[in-house]
């Protein structure tokens, strides 16, 4: 199945019954699939909105009413949704937002790129907030993480962002899909706005004029973010036991890096891979521990150097960081990356 289709199907199986979006390549297969599937499910709602801004605000509405809801877009469209994402965060509403990112800035192109890392992991919109950001690197993982993200969103009442790229969206791989959850069996939500008949009224708002009250709200959010930072870390390692140099890469770049590492391993170079899966929260602590043993980290991204800043913060001077990036929608080959890795490896006299 194609990555975009896997995400859409996994969302429906996780109980997502509301999808609002606006077309943009390379994620069009998500709304395409959703329109077909949701139209045939009882209670399914699919709306192709008049704009990205409208669609994210429809997400806010559906989430307030308690539905499992998703929207998807790519780079420029995600920029337009930032206002809504900031509101979702302030209102503490669960939602899943998929970004199949493409070459930027501006309209850029439609090729795979990782240039939205900063936007995704730093909140993206205005205000002091974070969103959970998950970066799958295969169709299987895209399905698994989408499925999981609905639970995370509900558990913490937080928007969850799936950060993929054009390659992940278009690539086809065999997948095992998760079982379908009946919507009726989802845990009830005690905060939804569904009409106050027979119960005290509730309200959800983001306008908090009293600075003391707003500060309290920010502290509350911060405590939630701290809890997530401790409990929801995801990462993968490959061949790091004897490694003298470790490549740090996420998403598609990690697939290419893994191919490169297999090549250089054949030549006897001791190189491993560390792949953050949750980009926020970033697996800082484990990377710090790794940097106590391995003194050379090679960060490879399909951008001009964004995650490398988180790596530097994590190791805090404890290891030497090398960076290689290809921006603009270029997909480097494993051969190219293996040559760069080798040249650093020998320059640093590691082998």
């Amino acid at each position: 199945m194609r990555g975009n289709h896997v995400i859409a199907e996994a969302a429906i199986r996780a109980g997502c019954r509301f999808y609002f979006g606006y077309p943009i390549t390379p994620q069009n297969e998500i709304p395409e699939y959703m329109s077909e599937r949701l139209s045939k499910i009882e209670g399914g709602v699919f709306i192709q909105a008049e704009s990205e801004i409208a669609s994210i605000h429809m997400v806010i509405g559906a989430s307030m009413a308690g539905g499992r809801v998703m929207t998807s877009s790519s780079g420029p469209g995600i920029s337009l949704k930032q206002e809504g994402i900031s509101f979702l965060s302030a209102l503490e509403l669960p939602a899943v937002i998929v970004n199949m990112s493409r070459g930027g800035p501006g309209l850029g192109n439609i090729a795979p790129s990782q240039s939205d890392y900063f936007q995704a992991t730093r909140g993206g919109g205005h205000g002091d907030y974070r969103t959970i950001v998950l970066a799958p690197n295969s169709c299987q993982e895209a399905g698994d993480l989408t499925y999981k993200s609905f639970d995370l969103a509900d558990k913490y009442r937080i928007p969850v962002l799936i950060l993929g790229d054009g390659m992940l969206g278009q690539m086809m791989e065999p997948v095992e899909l998760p079982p379908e959850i009946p919507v009726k069996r989802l845990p009830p939500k005690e905060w939804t706005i569904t009409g106050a008949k027979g119960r005290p009224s509730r309200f959800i708002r983001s306008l908090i004029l009293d600075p003391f009250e707003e500060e309290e709200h920010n502290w509350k959010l911060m405590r939630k973010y701290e809890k997530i930072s401790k409990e929801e870390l995801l990462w993968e390692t490959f061949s790091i036991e004897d490694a003298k140099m470790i490549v740090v890469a996420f998403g598609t770049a990690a697939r290419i890096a893994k191919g490169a590492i297999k090549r250089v391993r054949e030549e006897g170079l001791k190189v491993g891979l560390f792949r953050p899966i949750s980009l926020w929260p970033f697996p800082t602590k484990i990377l710090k521990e790794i940097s106590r043993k391995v003194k050379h980290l090679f960060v490879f991204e399909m951008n001009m150097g964004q995650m490398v800043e988180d790596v530097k913060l994590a190791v805090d001077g404890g290891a030497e960081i090398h960076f290689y990036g290809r921006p603009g929608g270029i997909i480097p080959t494993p051969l190219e990356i293996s040559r760069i890795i080798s040249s650093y490896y020998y320059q640093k006299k590691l082998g």
Partner: protein
Amino acid sequence: MLIKTVFSGFGGQGIILMGYLLATGGMYEGKNVTCLPSYGAEVRGGTANCTVVISKEEIASPVASEPDYAVVMNTPAMVRFQNQVQTGGIIFINSSLIEIRPIRGDLEIIEVPLNELSKQLGGNKATNMIMLGTFIRKTGLVSLETMINVIKDTFGNRPGIFKLNKTALSIGYNYLE
């Protein structure tokens, strides 16, 4: 075993479909597969290509640095991929459309006159399936039986199209003795 194949040609020649069917065939035979199509701005008459990896082990990268096989359906495709194929690899050429030939001596070249072969089908139809037939015969990546099953599952609800594609596949398969 890790075999990477690139299919390339004009949009509209069925390039992505060739890749999809091969990948599905690999999946039916219990192997790991990835299929990476080009997408978006490619339209009929533009360029299209598709990279398929079939492996018994986990596939690290779906991107091919040096493909084992290249299937080129038009001249720009050949110019682009002839020097990427690894030494000892095979390049399948649509000889009805491509007049030039690779200058490399370290490749095996299979020329398939697709337009001439498709005359048996009554015109330039299903040339991609003929090429796919030749491809699986030569490489043995998936069996003919599996591929017929794949085509059946893909086109099964349209018997006429299934029959046409199956016949085309056999023509290509039997082209190589």
